[in-house]
């Protein structure tokens, strides 16, 4: 005999990490489908098509290189980042890392309204939408890293074995980003103003995360604050592993993993608690 169960519902109860894991496991196919689509859609219909994921970061790098290295004469003191080429690689590594955050969070406030049909018309596991955003951004980030490695080798530098530990930096960073996307996408359904605020916050973090300038150029009083920004931690970690060939702060990465998990749990809880009302607002 079949078991009695409630109908599939659009508002699962679980709030914690286990609930996220469950949803991830049951919706594997859907997540893969949506992520593929998200990536293929991005440049669909453009003349250069698949070249854009490579071209876009390279062109961006050119702009920043001109403004900061040529115009402002910014420079790193560390030996692995000296010179124009060193500066370019350092900025690029930071840019690629930061884009995981900015791509995901920047569009988070429009995420749920853009999928209004999935909210109102079907029982859809809405919690996969933020995940798909972050996964797509991660894939783009991986492409960026591949470009970086090719560029390094072209300049006669080979990344050390430490480069293989990059996931240790990126996974906590992705979890943190996911947590922020959960919170932002949920709150933005109710508070449309968030769209404006988020743009500003992302820009603030962009300039605050020491992407174009060494942290040492910042007044000493605010250095610890900027260094502890999750985006700055990830940017610096990526550089250390790939460019400097050093392991970034052993204990600090544990702290960053723990705090990332905390952000994820809080963001997910916020999403789950407010999703029952999505259908009523949209």
């Amino acid at each position, binding site marked *: 005999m079949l078991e009695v169960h409630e*109908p599939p519902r659009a508002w699962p109860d679980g709030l914690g990490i286990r609930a996220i894991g469950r949803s991830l496991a049951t919706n594997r196919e859907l997540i893969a489908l949506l992520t593929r689509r998200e990536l293929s859609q991005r440049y669909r219909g453009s003349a250069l098509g698949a070249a854009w994921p490579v071209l876009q970061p390279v062109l961006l790098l050119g702009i920043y290189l001109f403004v900061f290295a040529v115009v402002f004469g910014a420079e790193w003191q560390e030996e692995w980042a000296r010179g124009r080429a060193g500066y370019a690689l350092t900025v690029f590594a930071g840019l690629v890392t930061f884009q995981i955050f900015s791509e995901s969070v920047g569009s988070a406030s429009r995420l749920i309204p853009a999928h209004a049909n999935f909210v109102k018309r*079907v029982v859809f596991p809405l919690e996969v939408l933020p995940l798909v955003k972050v996964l797509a951004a991660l894939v783009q980030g991986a492409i960026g890293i591949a470009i970086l490695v090719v560029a390094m080798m072209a300049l006669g530098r080979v990344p050390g074995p430490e480069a293989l530990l990059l996931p240790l930096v990126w996974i906590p960073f992705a979890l943190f980003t996911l947590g922020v996307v959960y919170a932002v996408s949920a709150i933005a359904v109710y508070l449309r103003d968030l769209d404006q605020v988020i743009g500003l916050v992302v820009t603030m973090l962009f300039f605050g995360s020491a992407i174009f300038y060494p942290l040492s150029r910042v007044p000493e009083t605010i250095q610890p604050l900027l260094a502890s920004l999750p985006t700055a931690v990830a940017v610096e970690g990526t550089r250390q592993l790939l460019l400097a060939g050093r392991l970034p702060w052993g204990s600090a990465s544990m702290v960053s993993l723990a705090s990332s998990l905390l952000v994820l749990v809080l963001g997910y809880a*916020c999403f789950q608690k407010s999703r029952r*009302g999505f259908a*009523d*607002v949209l």
Partner: protein
Amino acid sequence: MSCEAPPPPILEVQSVAKAYRVYRRPQDRLLQALLRPRTPRWQELWALHNVHFEVARGEAVGILGRNGAGKSTLLQLIAGTVAPTRGRVLVRGRIAALLQLGNGFHPDYSGRENVYMAGVIQGLSRAEIDARFEEIAAFADIGSYIDRPVKTYSTGMHARLAFAVAITCDPEILIVDEVLAVGDLLFQQKCITRIQQMRERGMTLLFVSHAVDRVAGLCDKALWIEEGRQRFFGPAAEGTELYLRSLRSEPARRPAPAARAAQAAADSELVRRQTRGVSRYGSQEVRITDVRVLDGHGAPRQEFHFLEEIVIEVDWASATHSERFNVSFLVRDETGINLTGTMTWDEGVVLPPVRPGDTGTVRFRFFNRLRPGRFGISVALTEIPLEDPRKPLLFDQIDGVSGFVVLADPKRPVHYKFDSDVRIEIP
């Protein structure tokens, strides 16, 4: 000794109620959800009150009700897109829901992508969807549009694809909400045929349609919801009849005199609509062609006060001979109780013998002694047999063919079903 319990119902809706909270500002909703203040920031709006029914595996239930009665809310509760405020919904099977238009298609995705998405949401693997894709595309029959974004579709194409997807997922319960109203007739027929095939294989159906005859034709049971309240749940024939009667008793449009003349030969729109329902009986050798509710001066009217004269005019057209022709009417209240009515024979009015091709009109006049409320009218044409006048032969009978409303008069209340002209003496 085996004592196997009967299989449990596939769907149980247990005392379900749904209140929507109306907030003044969207951010109030967020504050309410996160902070739970002691004084709520919303007002309640009840969309459903205490709806309670069970559906057995393989049954088909038609859901009747006017726009805004709460039908869609109920279906959303069953499909699980909306949470009930009270009560619960138990489902023992895989559901596919066609809730209004759209079926959760993403407007920017192509038809193909949406098919895959819908399949994956239903729990099918990519390979399974690959295997069914051709069938879905063939059923939807929208050609190369399958690879264009859904936002470029007409409503008809949208409905075609949505229906094709829903049925191909092989649901145990199919919820169809008004989807068949769009699209061309051919496709509608195709859908109905398909639904019937699936029903033969044991699928349970929940069906909402404004086309009451379709509910009567497809469904075993009917659920009638009015203003969020369950008015009826039971056999489809009875439910559709009750529902139709309530519709008839609503004030209707006044027919123009010219139009009435044109209708004289054929059945009136009212009667024709009724023909498709289940509540018409008889041999049809003599047919009711129109029924009008008029006031004492012959003007069409739907609302009456206490003691006002009500006139019911019945037009008929004959295709046979009848020596002892009889016309009758009956007034029922909303709960289905027969309140009053009579027939020409009983009143001693002898109608002239009827020949094929004859038409005629009978007018019933009476003074309204009913309490305020809505009333339905049924009309019948019969032949009174010489041998046993108590067993008339039925030519035509339409239940709930028309109706009227009795208005409340605060100065002259009628407390019970009707007033019987009581005289009071104080000796």
